[in-house]
């Protein structure tokens, strides 16, 4: 199966701090890839370097066979992105934000259909800032899906949501996966990662300390639960290095 996202030897420093250090990974078509790690481990920097919003110091990135900096226009017709803190004008309404987003693409999806599909079509005339947390996240998924993307990047999509809303988002993501969309996500919820991700990578101080499936992570650790395994990987640096 072809690699939809392919990253080789990515490095990025801010001054003396190595935010991402020689990181390579790839995601195959239709798979969900989870990027894990504590805050500051380099997840967002990785996503930004992959998308080209940050310039990597070194490394090669390709998405759908294209370089995100050189083929920006062409590539982002087919890529949906949701950044960690999403970004909308103070007094903009749901419908307006969707329409403006749709106008950026050559063949956008029908916004109303998407809003309907995600159960927020009655909110089109509501200000985005007045939506509840769960409604907002669903809107951000809608925005990421407007280009009818082949790949979506979701940075901490469910942070700040209550358990119910989080489950709803999982269902949505599972459906996207079933539709054949490739997903790269970051998350702090291990249950979410277990449910959704085909492959994961755990980052620590910009370096991958584990790369594989959830069950492999559990097997490589002395624990039975994934959450414990995750904590073990992120805490025990010395032991990890021996394993890798």
């Amino acid at each position, binding site marked *: 199966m072809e690699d939809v996202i392919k990253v080789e030897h990515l490095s990025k420093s801010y001054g003396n701090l190595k935010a991402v250090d020689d990181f390579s990974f790839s995601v195959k078509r239709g798979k969900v890839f989870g990027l894990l790690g504590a805050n500051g481990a380099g997840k967002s920097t990785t996503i930004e370097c992959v*998308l*080209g*919003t940050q310039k990597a110091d070194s490394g090669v990135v390709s998405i759908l066979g294209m370089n995100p900096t050189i083929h*920006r*226009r*062409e590539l*982002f*017709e087919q*890529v949906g*992105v949701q*950044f960690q*803190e*999403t*970004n*909308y*004008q*103070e*007094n*903009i309404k749901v419908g*307006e934000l969707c*329409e*403006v*987003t749709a*106008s*950026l*693409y*050559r063949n956008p999806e029908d916004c109303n259909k998407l809003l309907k599909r995600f159960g927020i079509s009655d909110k089109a005339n509501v200000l985005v800032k007045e939506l509840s947390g769960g409604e907002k996240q669903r809107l951000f998924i809608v925005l990421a899906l407007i*280009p009818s993307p082949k790949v979506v990047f979701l940075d901490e999509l469910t942070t700040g949501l209550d358990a119910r809303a989080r489950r709803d988002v999982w269902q949505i993501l599972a459906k996207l996966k079933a539709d054949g969309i490739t997903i790269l996500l970051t998350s702090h919820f291990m249950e979410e990662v277990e449910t959704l991700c085909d492959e994961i990578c755990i980052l620590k101080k910009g370096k991958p300390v584990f790369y594989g499936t959830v069950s492999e992570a559990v097997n490589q650790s002395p624990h039975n639960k994934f959450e414990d395994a995750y904590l073990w990987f992120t805490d025990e640096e010395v032991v990890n290095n021996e394993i890798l």
Partner: protein
Amino acid sequence: MRSYKKILKTELKLSLRGMDMLIFAVIMPIVVLVVLGIIYGNRPAFEGAGYTFIQRSFGGLASIAICAGGVMGLPLVVSDYRSKRILKRFKVTPISPVTILLVEVTIYFLYALTSLVTLFAVARIFFGFKMQGSILQFILGWLLVMVSMFSIGMMVGGIAKNSKDAGIIASILYFPMVIFSGATLPYEVMPTTMQSVVDILPLTQGIKILKSATLNLPMERVLLPIIVMTAIAVICSLVAIKFFKWE
């Protein structure tokens, strides 16, 4: 082009929803015009002057909207959209974030144009205003003042660290200029010493060009202001382009 139109339509709605530019750029100049008109009526600007007080004030009044949009509206919206990461979001779409900056420039241009048209209409209908000089010269001067003020705004918005800094710098630029450059308070009523102080404000120079065009005074006399405004436009644009922070 389709994206530009759609974004323009939405941003215009958002701007009007905010009301502040409507007040500062369109309503305020009219209020000042009416107040000056009520106080000075159609009287000559001074004894023996070949033009009325209102004619002399028109250029200044027409620059209020340019000043409000250029050094208040633009820096605030640019820094706000950067700190909200709206500019960054555009970077992961097929459309360049420059598009939304062009949209904002268009919006403030439209405010300035609306203000110019309404000022002209009110001055003409209620105070018998007539443009003595060439309308073409006036429009060219008006555009030069706009490019110059907008480039200041784009520079401030583009390089200010955050919205708070942009707001402070915008206030430092806007309030002295709107009060002391002759846009509202007539330049000619100021004592000579004060005039030479306020001459350092870019808008004071810009208004001299507009005044000269309105009153059909010899344009050679405003050669220096024209050079100053052009230089400001060039320098600030270059600084804005070179040092613009997208996030």
